[in-house]
C-alpha cells in the first residue's frame, strides 16, 4: 500500500476522467491541431480550444487567446522572463523562489543583461502583512525595475504571497508582475486581471490534476513577449516571422494535445469540488500532520504556522534524503533534499541538509498522516534516534 505524499512534485492519483480523456484523445482524435483539414486534426484543435476557454474562465481573463500552452512551468517562466526583459533592466524576486525563477534570472544577471534583487517575504516574521511585504519590495525598486517575479505559494512550505496587493503595488508603479503559480494553481483562487498579473505560469500536472508534459502561461492584458523559440505552428507558413498574435506567436511546434485533453478534465474536477473546499481539506490534513509531528520526538517543523498543502520537517539524527528513503521503504512517498529551492531553504534555515517535504492533494486521507506517524516512530526506533 502506497501513501503518496509528494503532490507538490506531481499529483497522484488523478481523477478518473483525466485518465479517460487522455486515453480517449490518444486513441481517437489525436491529430495535429491547427494544421490539417481532416476530422482528427480539427477534433484535436477543438479540445485545445475547449481547454483554453476553460482556463480563461478559471483564471479570470476575458480573452482565451491569452492562454498559452507550453511544456511545463519552467518553460513558461523562462519564456515570460526572457521574453520581457531588455538589457539594463532590473528584476525583483522573492527569497522563496524555486530554481525555475532563480536560475533564469541568475543567468541573465551573470551575462550582464539584467540586475536583480531579492526581497524578504518575511516568512519568519510574526507581524508579517501584505503592507510590510510590499514595503520590502518598494525598498528595492529602482528607476529601471522592469518586473517583480514571485511564487504565489512556496514549494517547500505553505506560505503564500499576497498577489492582489503586490499586483496593485506593481500596477501603480508601472512594473510588470510575473507569478509562478506552480504550487497554487488548483489550490487557491487566482484571477489574473483582478490581481493585475502580467503573466501567470503554471503546470498541468500539479494542483490542476492534469498529465505531465504541459504548462500554461496566462498573459495579462496588453502584454506581448519576445518569443523564446520559433518554429512551425501552421500559421503564415511562408513567412520567416512568427505571427504577431497570441497564442500562436508563442506555440511553435506540435502541441501536447493528450496532456491538454487530460488537463481539461482536471480543471473540471477542481471546479466541481471547489477551491475553497480543497484549501480547507488540505489545511485540515496539514493541521493533523503538524500535530502528529509535534508529538513525535526529535522532529523540527519549518514555517509551521502556515497551514496548507505543504509541510517541511526534519528528524534529528538522520539526513532528509536518508529519511525519505526510509519512508519509501515503509510505502510512504515524500521528497527529501532541497526541492530545487536554494533560496527557500536558505530562508527557512535548512540549506545545510535540506528537509523532508510532505505535500497533500485531494486524494489524501487522514490515514496517510497516521501511517506517516507510525513509520516515523518505527524509523526512530530502528535508527536508535533518542
Amino acid at each position, binding site marked *: 500500500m502506497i501513501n503518496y505524499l509528494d503532490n507538490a512534485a506531481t499529483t497522484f492519483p488523478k481523477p478518473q476522467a483525466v485518465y479517460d480523456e487522455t486515453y480517449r484523445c490518444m486513441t481517437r482524435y489525436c491529430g495535429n491541431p491547427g494544421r490539417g*483539414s481532416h476530422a482528427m486534426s480539427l477534433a484535436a484543435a477543438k479540445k485545445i*480550444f475547449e481547454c483554453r476557454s476553460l482556463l480563461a474562465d478559471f483564471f479570470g481573463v476575458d480573452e482565451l487567446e491569452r492562454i498559452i500552452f507550453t511544456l511545463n512551468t519552467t518553460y513558461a517562466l523562462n519564456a515570460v522572463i526572457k521574453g520581457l526583459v531588455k538589457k539594463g533592466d532590473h528584476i525583483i524576486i522573492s527569497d522563496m523562489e524555486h530554481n525555475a525563477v532563480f536560475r533564469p534570472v541568475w543567468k541573465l544577471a551573470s551575462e550582464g543583461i539584467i540586475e536583480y534583487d531579492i526581497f524578504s517575504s518575511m516568512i519568519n516574521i510574526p507581524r508579517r502583512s501584505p503592507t510590510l511585504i510590499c514595503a520590502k519590495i518598494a525598498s528595492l525598486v529602482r528607476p529601471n525595475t522592469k518586473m517583480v517575479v514571485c511564487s504565489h505559494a512556496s514549494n517547500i512550505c505553505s506560505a503564500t504571497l499576497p498577489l492582489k496587493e503586490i499586483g496593485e503595488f506593481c500596477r501603480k508603479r508601472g512594473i510588470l508582475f510575473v507569478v509562478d503559480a506552480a504550487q497554487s494553481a488548483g489550490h487557491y483562487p487566482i484571477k489574473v486581471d483582478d490581481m493585475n498579473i502580467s503573466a501567470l505560469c503554471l503546470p498541468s500536472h500539479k494542483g490542476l490534476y492534469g498529465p505531465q508534459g504541459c504548462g500554461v502561461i496566462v498573459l495579462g492584458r496588453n502584454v506581448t513577449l519576445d518569443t523564446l523559440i520559433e518554429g512551425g505552428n501552421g500559421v*503564415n507558413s*511562408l513567412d520567416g516571422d512568427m505571427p504577431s498574435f497570441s497564442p500562436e506567436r508563442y506555440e511553435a511546434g506540435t502541441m501536447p494535445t493528450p496532456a491538454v485533453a487530460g488537463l481539461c478534465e482536471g480543471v473540471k474536477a477542481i471546479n466541481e469540488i471547489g477551491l475553497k473546499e480543497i484549501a480547507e481539506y488540505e489545511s485540515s490534513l496539514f493541521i493533523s500532520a503538524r500535530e502528529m509531528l509535534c508529538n513525535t520526538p526529535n522532529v523540527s517543523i519549518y514555517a509551521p504556522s502556515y497551514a496548507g498543502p505543504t509541510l517541511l520537517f526534519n528528524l534529528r539524527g538522520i539526513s532528509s534524503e536518508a529519511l525519505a528513503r526510509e519512508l519509501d521503504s515503509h510505502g510512504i512517498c515524500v521528497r527529501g533534499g532541497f526541492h530545487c529551492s536554494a533560496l527557500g531553504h536558505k530562508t527557512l534555515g535548512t540549506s545545510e541538509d535540506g528537509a523532508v517535504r510532505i505535500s497533500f492533494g485531494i486524494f489524501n486521507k487522514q490515514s496517510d498522516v497516521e501511517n506517516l506517524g507510525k513509520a516515523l516512530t518505527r524509523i526512530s526506533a530502528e535508527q536508535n534516534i533518542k
Partner: protein
Amino acid sequence: MKEKNDECSAEIGSVTQAMKAQDFLSAAAIPSKVIKSRSSSRHGCIYGVAYSCSQENNVRAVLANARISVKHWNQNLPL
C-alpha cells in the same frame, strides 16, 4: 471538384480564431463548422467557418460584433 452548394465561408486565420468564431455563431444559434480554407495552399494553414449562405448577413453581424476579423468572404464556393 464538387458542385457549387449553399455553403458560404469566412476565412479567418488561425484555428483558434476560427473556433472562437464558431463559438460566437453557435451562441447566436447560427450553425457553422470550422474548415481549413482553400487559400491555405498559398499562405499556410488558414481556417474559417462555413455556414449556410442564407445566414450571410447574420454571420457578418455576429463576427463584427465579436471583433473577429475576416480575411475573405467566400460565397457559394465548392468546399
